[in-house]
């Protein structure tokens, strides 16, 4: 996968896919800004600017804080993994190629595979594994939806271009004069500033507590089934507000409920996802309505998918006994470290500088961005490049259908995580 030649002068790239959030927008223009750093020239957002425009650092691998050669670091990492009772392959801020390499190494090394954002991924997975859902994708929502309900999630922060590209877009495939869209923010403290422009009609905020969204959706399920609700308040909202929300849903031809599972960070947060999904499923008995889960940062859609197609399970898989074993509680990396069931953490963070390992005194090997904001000195640190910046790769988008090619945008001496992982595996 050679990166395409630049078309607009030296090192100016068009149609670049951005790996820094789950939406993987692929319409960016990127150019150089001196000293190996990059500049987002078109279609940037807070996340892509922060990612692409990081200072370019090329660091040497380290063992106990001392510079070593890459070969020495790889050999030392292989020794630690070989001697480990139960290595954890965590963090996993990586793409498809990186995950393939992690899976091969975890199989060989008898370890556990878990992503840093698994807790929020699992709020969705548990629902899929217990009752399922009916969902849509970005292009479909962009062209078809006439109602967006943003459920408890600050999408503008997790996926900054969602509103621009999917909600506020002027063109719609199905009408030269598309109807205005209603956007409802369900939950308090959500940034609604991005819901603006010609396409946007009513914008409402329904300021309920995030952990009471489930109650509101449950009430809507009951109304849908013909039950009479007599309580004055539902989930802390006046009943009339919920009835109005229901009426707006009824008036839509293709509504979409959007959530980011990371927002439901409270006990039983998966049950909120489930209630949303059950409401959507039931709505489709007579009309069309769909869900759209967002977030998906730090490569989590890629990692979850590759892990599922290779091991059969969506993360939290152990190869300690050779066979893939799946247990969403038992193989939670955080728990395994806290209980010291694991004696080695192999942490991979190749996108952002903030995906730092948990604070643990378990020996740690870090494959990370050179600027990774480590709180503790790891036993071994191997700086690696970022897929889509320093080397090619592929990323699966948050709607779990589309994947994008990631390009190499500059010359870098940083090795790629897949190459480092493959070398470690070979050295076992």
């Amino acid at each position, binding site marked *: *996968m*050679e990166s*395409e030649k630049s078309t607009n002068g030296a090192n100016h790239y*068009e*149609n670049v*896919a951005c790996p820094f959030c789950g939406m993987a*927008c*692929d*319409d960016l223009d990127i150019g150089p800004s001196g000293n190996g750093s990059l500049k987002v020239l078109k279609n940037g957002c807070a996340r892509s600017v922060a990612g692409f425009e990081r200072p370019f650092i090329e660091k040497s691998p380290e063992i106990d804080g001392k510079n070593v050669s890459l070969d020495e670091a790889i050999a030392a990492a292989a020794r630690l993994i070989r001697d480990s009772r139960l290595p954890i392959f965590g963090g996993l801020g990586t793409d498809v190629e990186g995950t*393939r390499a992690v899976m*091969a190494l975890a*199989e060989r090394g008898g370890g556990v595979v878990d992503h840093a954002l698994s807790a929020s991924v699992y709020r969705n*997975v548990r629902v*899929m*594994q*217990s009752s*399922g859902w*009916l*969902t*849509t*994708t*970005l*292009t*479909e929502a*962009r062209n*078809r939806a006439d109602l967006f309900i943003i459920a408890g999630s600050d999408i503008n922060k997790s996926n900054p271009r969602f509103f621009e*590209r999917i909600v506020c877009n002027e*063109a*719609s*495939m*199905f009408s030269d004069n598309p109807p205005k869209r209603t956007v409802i923010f369900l939950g308090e403290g959500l940034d609604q500033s991005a819901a603006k422009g010609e396409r946007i009609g009513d914008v409402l905020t329904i300021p309920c507590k995030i952990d009471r969204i489930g109650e509101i959706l449950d009430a809507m399920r009951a109304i849908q089934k013909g039950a009479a609700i007599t309580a004055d308040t539902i989930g802390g909202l006046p009943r009339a507000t919920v009835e109005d929300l229901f009426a707006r849903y009824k008036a839509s031809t*293709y509504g979409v409920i959007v959530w980011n599972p990371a927002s439901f960070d409270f006990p039983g947060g998966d049950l909120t996802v489930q209630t949303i999904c059950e409401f959507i*499923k039931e709505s*489709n008995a007579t*009309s*069309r309505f*769909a869900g759209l889960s967002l977030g998906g940062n730090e490569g989590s859609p890629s990692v979850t*998918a*590759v892990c*599922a*197609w*290779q*091991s*059969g*399970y*969506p993360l939290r898989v152990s190869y300690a*006994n*050779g*066979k*893939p*074993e*799946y247990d969403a509680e038992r193989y939670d990396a955080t728990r395994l470290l806290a209980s010291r069931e694991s004696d080695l953490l192999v942490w991979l963070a190749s996108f952002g500088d903030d995906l730092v390992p948990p604070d643990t005194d378990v020996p740690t090997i870090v494959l990370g961005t050179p600027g990774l904001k480590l709180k503790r000195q790891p036993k071994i640190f191997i700086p690696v490049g970022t897929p889509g910046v320093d080397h090619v790769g*592929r990323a*699966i988008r948050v709607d*779990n*259908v*589309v*994947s*994008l*090619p990631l390009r190499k945008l500059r010359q870098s001496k940083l090795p790629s995580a897949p190459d480092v992982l493959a070398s470690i595996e070979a050295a076992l």
Partner: protein
Amino acid sequence: MLIKLTGGRIYDPANEVDGEVRDIFIENGRIVSPPPNPKVDHEYPVHGRVIMAGGIDPHSHIGGGKMTIARMMLPEDHIGQEFARTDITRAGVGYAIPSTMTAGYRYAEMGYTAAFEPAMLPSNARQAHMELADTAIIDKGAFAMLGSDDFFLRQLAAKSDFSAIKDYIAWTMHATQAIAVKVVNPGGISAFKFNQRKLDLDEKHTYYGVSPRDIIVTLARGLKELGVVHPIHIHGCNLGVPGGVETTLATIKGAEGLPIHLTHIQFHSYGTEGDMKFSSAAAQVAEAVNTNPNVSCDVGQVMFGQTCTASGDSMRQFVNTRSAYPKKWVVMDIECDAGCGVVPFKYRDKSFVNALQWAIGLELFLLINDPWRLFLTTDHPNGGPFTCYPHLIRLLMDKTFRQEMMQTINQDALKYSTLSTLDREYTLYEIAIMTRAGPARSLGLADRGHLGVGACADITVYDDNPDREAMFATPELLFKNGELIVRNGKIVKAVNGATHVARPSYDRSIERQLKPYFDDYNTVRMENFRLSDDEITDNGRGSLIIQPTKARVA
């Protein structure tokens, strides 16, 4: 290196060889003429063994987003079916929806060397190929799904120039690295997004005003004129609907002699007779197939047990969610391109409906005369996992066994089927047609599916066991490109298979229409939508085989 297989009985229908004893010579991965003074490096004495080309499954859902949804959704499928890593093979899991590497191993262990993913959504093509790349050993290929995608429907509704429609079909095949094109519930997946709940053959799509018949005929004619060898692969309207036979017969008639492939026709051969308003119409469908030489089909046989249905047909799958077992399901509207529905299902031998489905599939096998136009499939995993093929082959080859099995199922179902009156037993020659030679010819795989000189040395050696299930479950030897891969049903070497594609010619100026379409409506740029060859070859993980197409007409 010269390899010799000595003394086997050869079943090679493409070369009209029916059980003759012959030696086979292999050099550089190919079958070669017997050299005048052979210096054989490795000889395999296979006297009395049955030799066929490697099996080819023309319709098996093994790669792509809906399969990974199914894998994630159903840990139940995998538990107790876990496989540890060995020095040769990777770890994996699964029965009905195996993990990717495991699927490849299971195919190879069963004597198969190729399988084709029949429902690759263009928007999901990259992922489908990544999963296929992780499917060990076997060669693969994929059929691009068209017919509910908005670009095509807009072309049809606008009555676009036919050559532009053909350019788009061909462009899609190139962009998605496909070997064929499939249509699923023509127009129906899109219609479901507009809240239509069914779309009969002559019913109009509420927004585009086109009918499934228009879509099928356009794609059938388009592919024929593009010179694509495999005809339009049709998953028709009204899948699984009692009375769906009428649609199937009308689809055959409506093709007006154009080549068509009707996939999993078992699900499209249901009548409405009897107290349950559900009966077999296999005889009518078989007669229509027998009398229309432009039609080929695969069966989509139902096998009893737990499986998971996975289809692009979101419209019909949404209806099927009522029967989900266990009770969970995923349905998706996808990218102004397609849809999907993943619904777990258990076929029960004591259920009237399931038993009749089983009988209908077998009736179709036994009533359709020409095995060159009939392929052995379970529509994996929709009718059952592909690992059931040996059992299915025994049902077809062994009438006594078939009758024993019939005793164990719902007896009322047999009253609405002609199965108990059918005496036919398939021969090894016919099995070789249905599982190798026929699919290879239909898909246009020039050097596969046969054992003639120049063929790729994908070769399966079976013990001639009268228990045909045991025979086909555990071949003695499997060669892939001349390398020994399986011995006595166990993998001895793992390799990476290739990807078959077809590349009909097209006018690149179609991209002048596609570019603004992608920019205005899609969330992916046209430039990123296309898969490069490098993505398939993927640093040695895969390789490409470009199969020939015929000359394009107009």
